[in-house]
């Protein structure tokens, strides 16, 4: 169940199935103080199979946000190859929706206008986009707030709106960068469960970055454990919990086992 970092890419991909994301030997350095270079990440091999929910857990500063920025096409690696659905990943794509750590909603736009931003940028037909935006807001319980400004909403509602925006252009891949990190524990759990059922309904591929082990287990098919300096994938753990998952999932003995297993891997390295 636990594979060494180098072994993650060892398994050959199933025939005729292209991974949503495939990273091979990817590493990233940042310029540090006085001409030095900080090794932030890698080398990393990462495969996100189509239709799966993959999470990366790790402590703050372990390079997991860098990993997500690479997968998003917002930054380019120094070494290694990256593909998205079989084609070279060298720029952001409208096939990818991102939910950022902070909601990043525009305060000068209404909730509906914010959700429709991708349609505006991608020049999608207005009427259809509006209909889809309203349906997404309906699904997330925000229909009544469509014409409100985001600053009138609670933190949880803002993050729901950000999720709606990420889903508007019907992306094949959803990237989640600690999407609930800024929320209180109760709202975080509530939104995690909502996201879990939403993901199952939509049947999309998702990639989650988080420091919350329980959130990672609750949502994912696989949890990758990351260690810092430089960021490397330490373990690949399959989450064999039944779906649909709900508030009771966290009480299963298997859930606690997985949680302990991941904690052990993280703290072993950091002790």
């Amino acid at each position, binding site marked *: 169940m636990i594979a060494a970092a180098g072994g993650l890419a060892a398994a050959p991909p199933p025939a005729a199935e292209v991974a949503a994301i495939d990273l091979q030997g990817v590493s990233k350095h940042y310029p540090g103080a006085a001409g030095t270079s900080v090794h932030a990440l890698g080398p990393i091999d990462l495969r996100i199979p189509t239709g799966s929910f993959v999470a990366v857990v790790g402590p703050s500063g372990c390079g997991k946000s860098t990993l997500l*920025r690479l997968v*998003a*096409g*917002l930054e380019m690696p120094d070494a290694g190859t990256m593909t998205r659905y079989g084609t070279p990943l060298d*720029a*952001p*794509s*409208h096939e*990818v929706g*991102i939910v*950022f*750590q*902070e909601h*990043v909603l*525009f*305060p*000068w736009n209404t909730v509906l206008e914010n959700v429709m*931003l*991708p349609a*505006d*940028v*991608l020049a999608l037909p207005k009427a259809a986009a509006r209909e889809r935006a309203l349906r997404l807001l309906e699904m997330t319980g925000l229909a009544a707030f469509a014409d409100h*400004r985001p*600053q009138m909403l609670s933190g949880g509602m803002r993050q729901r709106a950000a999720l709606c925006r990420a889903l508007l252009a019907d992306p094949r891949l959803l990237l989640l960068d600690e999407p609930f990190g800024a929320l209180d524990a109760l709202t975080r759990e509530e939104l995690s469960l909502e996201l879990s059922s939403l993901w199952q309904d939509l049947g999309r591929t998702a990639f989650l970055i988080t420091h919350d082990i329980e959130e990672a287990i609750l949502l994912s098919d696989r949890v990758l454990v990351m260690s810092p300096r430089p960021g490397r994938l330490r373990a690949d753990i399959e989450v064999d919990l039944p779906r649909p998952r709900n508030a009771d999932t966290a009480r299963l003995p298997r859930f606690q086992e997985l949680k302990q297993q991941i904690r052990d891997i993280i703290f072993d390295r950091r002790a």
Partner: protein
Amino acid sequence: MSVPSSSSLAGRATIPAVYLVLLVAWELSVRVFVIPAWILPAPTEIGRTALQWAPELALNSLVTLRETLVGFALAIALSLPLAVLIALNATARRLLYPILLGLQSVPKVAVAPLIILWLGLSEWPKIVIVILVCFFPILVNLIAGLEAAPRTMLDLMRSLGASPHMIFRRLRVPVALPHFFTGCKVAVTFAVIGSVIGEFVAAQEGLGYLILISTSQSQTPLAFAAIALLTLLSIALFHGIEWIERRVVNWTP
């Protein structure tokens, strides 16, 4: 933002009451110490003179207001393209910023006679001085605003594959608006000063001209009335911009 007492009647009455006390103190000092009106006129004396000269004051106020507004509008019109150019283009920044900073650093009072020499006695030299005095705060704040888009929002736009034009329209402009209005509020009070500088150097009308003429003839109460009008004009323009700002930038708490 809100002072707790400001909503109560007592709270709202405090500030006018303080001003009234100051005015009364002024009036009493002038009377008790028998200060001649040509040195320091009493508020009642200024008021009486203002009423007596009301038509002239109104006419000259309009002249100064016109110069101020035309110069201010042109300063905005000049600052907008320059700020966009400087904010988005590094070469333009290196080329233009030193020139603009130089223009700002030249003492406007010192070049005012030259400008009048070049442009003659029309209202244009005053307008040019107004532009010179007030373009810089608008420009600097606008540049800062156009560069103030948070990285997270830029990432969002980039992740959607937004073009620079789209990023400009949907993100940079709205982020810049509050900065722009801050610049305008500073600039408009400078603009009034700019008009007066121009009128001091060469003019046949305007409040600055009126002040110059009335002091030279020891008509101090009239000068005070003109100064009071200039102050009120400046305050009114400031609040006018604030009023527009509240309607345009309606998303900040």
